[in-house]
């Protein structure tokens, strides 16, 4: 009697504490902010397709110009949903430092967004290749394909893999570098640059940096950042251009960063670091370097484009002057950036259709497309849009970067093993520039490891 009573009490107690736990669970969930609870239907394979009624979309954007700005995104979405009352849209702004982690964990936990905005190296080569994306062939109408190809066939090629399109592009640009015009002027280094074409030769680059160093106007002439993968397009372009090396072979099947030209370039950079004409910083990523440029601590930045110029406009007290990377042959090959939209296959056709409609609105609607491109600060992939900045207040800024557009080089970002090679790249730079490893050895190791990751 007594015994059974005791057990009963115990059971009661145990279930009570469990109940408490469960209650706590319920309570907590309700206090959890609702807008973030994207866990429910969005990514769940078993969720029933929303029949004609309300469709809820989630959009994640990497910081591509104003697409990384909260108010702008909200405005854009409000405009769309006002015209399409059946759709509600939530959005999330990613950054490049943590964005990949966020997307990876969202994919593995089933909370991936419907639409994502980035470039082909992620949309096509990574997520597309892993069968996570929806084929967007129907967005690539004949008209659209022809229009985009008129700008650059490379863009069309970059957005597809094995005959499937995983990205529908909106804009593009060339990544360049910039100099502090006033510092160059005062130090007498302007003679080394061609202001009309915004180009300079490798020899002149070295002379210019040495002049800046000797002038003592800034703490450091330039910083080769290699503390992480952020902004690595800048260091890649620097190395490739100095002696006209290539990053990959023409078919994008093999890395070629250990070619004679590239090794020579790496050795040159190393010697400039040793002489103080450049500074190598293994604790810096592009953000840190840009900040030093904006402060006037460094006289050049290797990570420049229209978007960065706009971001730092309020901070700089000088003229940041966009330049192509220095080359030995006078023909710079700048890294291109292509940005557009892709759709994660969350198994809900209604959502996929709604997502496609939204992408069409942003990229194809004649009025909206212009505005969308303006928001990015870059240039349209559609030739028919012409100069979207004509007559706007940013026309002059845009013109600066437009000069550099013809230097667009090979878009090699679609090669396999992209994420692995990014890590390998900055590690290689660290080894050469701060670790005392011979350039050829380190570059060979980079190529071996990166090729192995192409898979």
């Amino acid at each position: 009697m007594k015994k059974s009573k005791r057990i009963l009490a115990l059971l009661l107690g145990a279930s009570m504490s469990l109940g408490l736990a469960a209650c706590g669970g319920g309570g907590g969930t309700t206090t959890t902010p609702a807008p973030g609870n994207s866990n429910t239907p969005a990514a769940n394979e078993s969720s029933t397709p929303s029949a004609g009624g309300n469709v809820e979309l989630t959009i994640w954007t990497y910081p591509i110009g104003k697409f990384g700005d909260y108010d702008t995104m909200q405005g854009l979405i409000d405009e769309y949903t006002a015209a399409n009352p059946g759709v509600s849209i939530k959005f999330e702004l990613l950054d490049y430092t943590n964005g990949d982690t966020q997307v990876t964990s969202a994919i593995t936990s089933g909370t991936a967004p419907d639409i994502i905005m980035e470039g082909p190296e992620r949309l096509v080569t990574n997520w597309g290749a892993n069968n996570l994306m929806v084929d967007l062939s129907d967005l690539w109408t004949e008209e659209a394909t022809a229009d985009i190809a008129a700008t650059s066939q490379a863009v069309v090629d970059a957005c597809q893999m094995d005959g499937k399109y995983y990205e529908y592009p909106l804009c593009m640009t060339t990544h360049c570098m910039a100099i502090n015009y006033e510092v160059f002027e005062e130090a007498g280094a302007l003679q080394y640059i061609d202001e009309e074409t915004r180009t300079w030769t490798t020899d002149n680059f070295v002379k210019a940096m040495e002049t800046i160093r000797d002038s003592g106007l800034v703490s450091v002439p330039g910083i080769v950042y290699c503390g992480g993968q952020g902004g690595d397009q800048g260091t890649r372009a620097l190395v490739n251009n100095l002696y006209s090396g290539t990053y990959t072979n023409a078919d994008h099947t093999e890395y070629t960063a250990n070619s004679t030209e590239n090794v020579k370039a790496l050795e040159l950079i190393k010697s400039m670091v040793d002489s103080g004409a450049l500074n190598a910083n293994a604790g810096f990523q592009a953000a840190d370097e840009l900040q030093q440029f904006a402060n006037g601590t460094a006289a050049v930045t290797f990570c420049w484009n229209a978007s960065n110029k706009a971001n730092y406009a309020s901070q700089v007290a000088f003229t940041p002057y966009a330049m192509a990377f220095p080359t030995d042959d006078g023909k710079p090959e700048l890294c291109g950036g292509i940005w557009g939209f892709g759709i994660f296959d969350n198994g809900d056709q209604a959502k996929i259709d709604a997502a496609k409609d939204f992408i069409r609105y942003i990229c194809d609607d004649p009025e909206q497309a212009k505005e969308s491109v303006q928001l990015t600060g870059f240039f349209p992939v559609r030739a028919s849009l012409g100069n979207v900045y004509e007559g706007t207040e940013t026309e002059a800024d845009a013109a600066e970067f437009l000069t550099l557009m013809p230097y667009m080089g090979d878009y090699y970002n679609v090669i396999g093993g992209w994420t692995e090679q990014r890590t390998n790249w900055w590690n290689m730079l660290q080894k050469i520039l701060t670790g005392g490893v011979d350039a050829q050895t380190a570059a060979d190791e980079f190529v071996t490891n990166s090729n192995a990751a192409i898979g």
Partner: protein
Amino acid sequence: MNHAKSKLSGTSTGYKAITVVILILLAIFFIFPLYWIVTGSFKDAMTINARVPQWFPLNPTLENYAKLFKNPAGQWLLNTVIMAVGALVLTCLTAALAGYALAKKRFYGRALLFTIIICAMALPKQVIVIPLLREMKILHLADTLWAVILPTVGWPFGVFLMKQFSETIPNEILEAARVDGAGELRTFFSVVFPMIKPGIGALAIFTFVNSWNDYFLQLIMLTSRTNWTISLGIARLQGEMSSDFGLIMAGATLAAIPIVAVFIAFQKYFTQGIAMGAVKG
């Protein structure tokens, strides 16, 4: 021996003076980062990036805070509190019950269970985070605060601590309760619980601080901006293309000040609780 003693007492005044000096220097070293966070948050971009440090913000500005609150920073703080308190309550409750059983009950599998707990205690979450994410997907808890709370509660450190603490309860008292006819649960809540209260206090503080600082789990589990904690928020204020230290310091101030204030106000209970928890260990 005597010689050594006299030598020691002879130098003892000098030794003490040196000790105090070192302690004061260390104190400055430990306070300084917090000071630099708070003052940094009131400096404008020019001052922050100046080549000569400004020890005190001469032209204090609120612009960093204006920028900070363009983000849902208040929400982040609230999320962090909900998360830490949720983890604390659940951990204390479950660990107190389990620790008591491990310390005072004789049962099959006890030694094995205790060994498993010891081994699992130091297990970093990085190891199991990939399977955890899958679980959260199945439970539909991904990207909610629960995804952070539940693994924290599962971590067996609390059970270990409460076991150590429960061992100090004299068996005679338990026996007396039993003789009086108290059931197991009544024994626990009316006899055991009051005796291990300080231990629970210690565990509460430990769990709270740990969960507050568990950046890794938060980083992996929480993807939506509105679900972030303040730690994630600060870390993300540092973008790829900018590192605005003024803004970051404003975020850090927001994260640090409430908990520092609570700590200083309840310093006595705080330290007592922690201390009591372990001294008995």
